[in-house]
C-alpha cells in the first residue's frame, strides 16, 4: 500500500440552491477541486461519485457517467463509478478512491459527492431519507428516520442520564460554528431555549435537532504521496481509512446507545494511523441528528460512554475546547446533502490542516478525524488526516 495525499479540495455552498441542477453543483465542486490541485484533465485516472438517491430525488440514475460527461472527462473515457451507502456514500467514495491510489492502480483520482434534495417536497424527502433504514420491517410500521434516532436518544437518556438540554446543546454549538462558515446553509446562532421549544418532529427531538434537507456538492483530488509535491507544497496525508458494517435495522442490535460500527472502524483507524484519541485536535462527525454527535464522540473514543452530553454542555467539543467537533457547522448547520456530506467533511478537515479555515481555524491543527454514517449506523467510514 502506498501513502495517499489530498492535493485539492472544492465545494459549493450548501442550502436550497434552486437555480442550480444536480449536474451544475457536481461540476462546480469538481472543477474547484481540480483547479485547487492545478491539474489538467488528462492527468485524472478515475472519478468516484458518492450519491445516495438521485433516482428518487431527481429521477436520474447513472450519475457517475453524468458527472464524467459534464466535467469533460467522458471525452477522455475516464472511468467513473458511483458509490451508494446512504449517508455514508461520500465517505465510502473517498475510501474507494483512496484504495485505488493506495493499491497502485491509479495515481490521481477525483472523489466527489453530491445530492440534490430540494427538487422534491419535505414529506417526500423524509420518505427518501427513511429508505436508509429497513423499509420492510421499520419504515412500513411508521418508523421514520427521525423516529429511529429519537428512540436512540430516549434510550441514551434512560441508560446514562443524558439530559434533553445536553442533546440540544449540540445544535447550539454547531450553529455557532456554522455562523463562521460562509459555505454553511445556516449561518445564524441559535439559543438553547429555541431548540427546546421548537416544534416536535419525533419526541424528544424537534426541528432544531435535525439536519436540514440540502443541495450541495463537494470534491477532493487524491494523489500518491510520491507525486503529490509536484502539485502542492502542503499535501495532507490520509493516515488511515476504515469501514465497518452493522445490522440494517436498529432493532436487531443488542444496544442502540452505541454504534458498534463506529467503534470498530475507529479502533482500526487509530491502529492503522498509529495514533490515539488524544493525538486528534478536531473531528467532523455525522450529526444528522443532535443525538448522533453524542454517540459519535463517545464511540470514536474521545469521551467515555455516557459522558458525551456532559462534555458537550461543558464546551469541551466547541471551538477552543479540548476537541473541536464539527467546526464546519456539521450536518446540522453546514447542511446535509446526503451524498456530499462525507466528502465535505474531508474538505473541512483539509482546510483546517492547511491553516486556511479563517474565523473557525483550530490553532495548530495537525491531525483530524472524519466519521461518516449510513442509516442508523449500518455503514460507518472513519478517516484520519494529518499534516505531513
Amino acid at each position: 500500500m502506498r501513502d495517499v495525499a489530498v492535493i485539492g479540495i472544492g465545494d459549493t455552498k450548501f442550502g436550497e440552491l434552486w437555480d442550480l441542477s444536480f449536474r451544475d453543483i457536481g461540476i462546480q465542486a469538481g472543477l474547484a477541486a481540480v483547479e485547487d490541485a492545478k491539474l489538467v484533465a488528462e492527468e485524472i485516472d478515475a472519478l468516484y461519485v458518492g450519491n445516495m438517491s438521485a433516482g428518487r430525488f431527481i429521477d436520474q440514475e447513472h450519475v457517475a457517467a453524468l458527472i464524467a460527461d459534464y466535467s469533460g472527462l467522458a471525452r477522455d473515457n475516464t472511468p467513473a463509478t458511483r458509490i451508494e451507502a446512504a449517508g455514508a456514500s461520500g465517505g465510502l467514495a473517498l475510501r474507494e478512491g483512496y484504495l485505488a491510489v493506495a493499491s497502485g492502480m491509479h495515481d490521481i483520482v477525483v472523489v466527489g459527492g453530491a445530492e440534490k434534495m430540494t427538487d422534491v417536497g419535505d414529506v417526500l424527502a423524509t420518505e427518501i431519507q427513511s429508505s436508509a433504514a429497513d423499509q420492510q420491517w421499520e419504515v412500513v410500521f411508521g418508523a421514520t428516520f427521525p423516529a429511529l434516532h429519537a428512540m436512540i436518544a430516549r434510550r441514551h437518556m434512560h441508560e446514562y442520564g443524558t439530559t434533553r438540554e445536553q442533546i440540544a446543546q449540540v445544535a447550539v454549538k454547531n450553529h455557532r460554528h456554522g455562523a463562521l462558515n460562509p459555505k454553511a446553509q445556516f449561518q445564524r446562532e441559535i439559543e438553547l431555549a429555541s431548540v427546546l421549544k421548537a416544534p416536535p418532529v419525533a419526541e424528544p427531538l424537534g426541528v432544531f435537532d435535525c439536519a436540514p434537507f440540502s443541495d450541495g456538492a463537494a470534491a477532493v483530488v487524491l494523489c500518491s504521496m510520491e507525486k503529490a509535491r509536484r502539485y502542492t507544497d502542503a499535501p495532507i496525508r490520509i493516515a488511515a481509512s476504515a469501514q465497518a458494517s452493522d445490522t440494517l435495522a436498529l432493532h436487531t442490535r443488542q444496544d442502540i446507545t452505541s454504534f458498534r460500527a463506529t467503534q470498530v472502524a475507529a479502533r482500526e483507524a487509530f491502529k492503522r494511523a498509529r495514533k490515539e484519541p488524544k493525538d486528534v485536535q478536531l473531528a467532523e462527525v455525522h450529526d444528522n441528528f443532535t443525538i448522533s454527535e453524542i454517540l459519535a464522540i463517545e464511540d470514536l473514543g474521545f469521551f467515555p460512554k455516557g459522558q458525551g452530553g456532559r462534555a458537550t454542555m461543558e464546551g469541551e467539543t466547541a471551538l477552543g475546547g479540548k476537541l473541536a467537533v464539527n467546526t464546519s457547522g456539521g450536518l446540522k448547520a453546514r447542511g446535509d446533502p446526503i451524498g456530499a456530506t462525507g466528502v465535505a467533511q474531508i474538505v473541512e478537515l483539509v482546510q483546517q490542516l492547511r491553516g486556511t479555515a479563517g474565523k473557525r481555524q483550530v490553532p495548530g491543527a495537525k491531525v483530524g478525524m472524519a466519521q461518516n454514517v449510513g442509516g442508523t449506523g449500518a455503514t460507518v467510514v472513519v478517516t484520519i488526516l494529518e499534516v505531513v
Partner: protein
Amino acid sequence: MMVTARFWRENPSRYNLAAKRCNNCGKVFFPPRAVCSVCHRKSLGKMECIHLKGEGEVYSFTVVHEAPSHFEMLKPYVVVMVKMDEGVMLTSQLIDVGAKDVRIGMRVRATLRRLGEDGPAGVIYYGYKFAPVRQEG
C-alpha cells in the same frame, strides 16, 4: 407505497409473527432469515420455523409528529421498539394508550391492525401493532 405482492409475501410474519430459531445456538430471528448470524454455516438446515408469542416490553419509544404522507391521518402516533419475550426486538406502533403514559419497560402485546393502503382505491394491508397488556383483576 407498495405493490400488493411485495406486502402479501410477508404476511406470515406480519399477521402471525412467523420467526426462525437457530437450533444450533437457540437464537431467535425476526423476520425469518436463512442463516444464523452467530453460527453461520453450522446453522444451515437447522433454522426452524417458530411463532413469537406476541408479548414483550417497551425498550424505547417516540411520538412521531412529522410523518410520511400515508401516515398523515394518524399523527401524532407512538412508535416503539419492543423486546419480545423470546429475546428479539420489533419496531411498530403502540396504540390504545396516551402518548404521556408510555414508559420504557411497560408490558405490551401484539395485535393485528390496519397498517396502510395502496392509495384510496388500492389494497389495504394489515400487520402487527402493539397495545398495553392490561393487568387482570
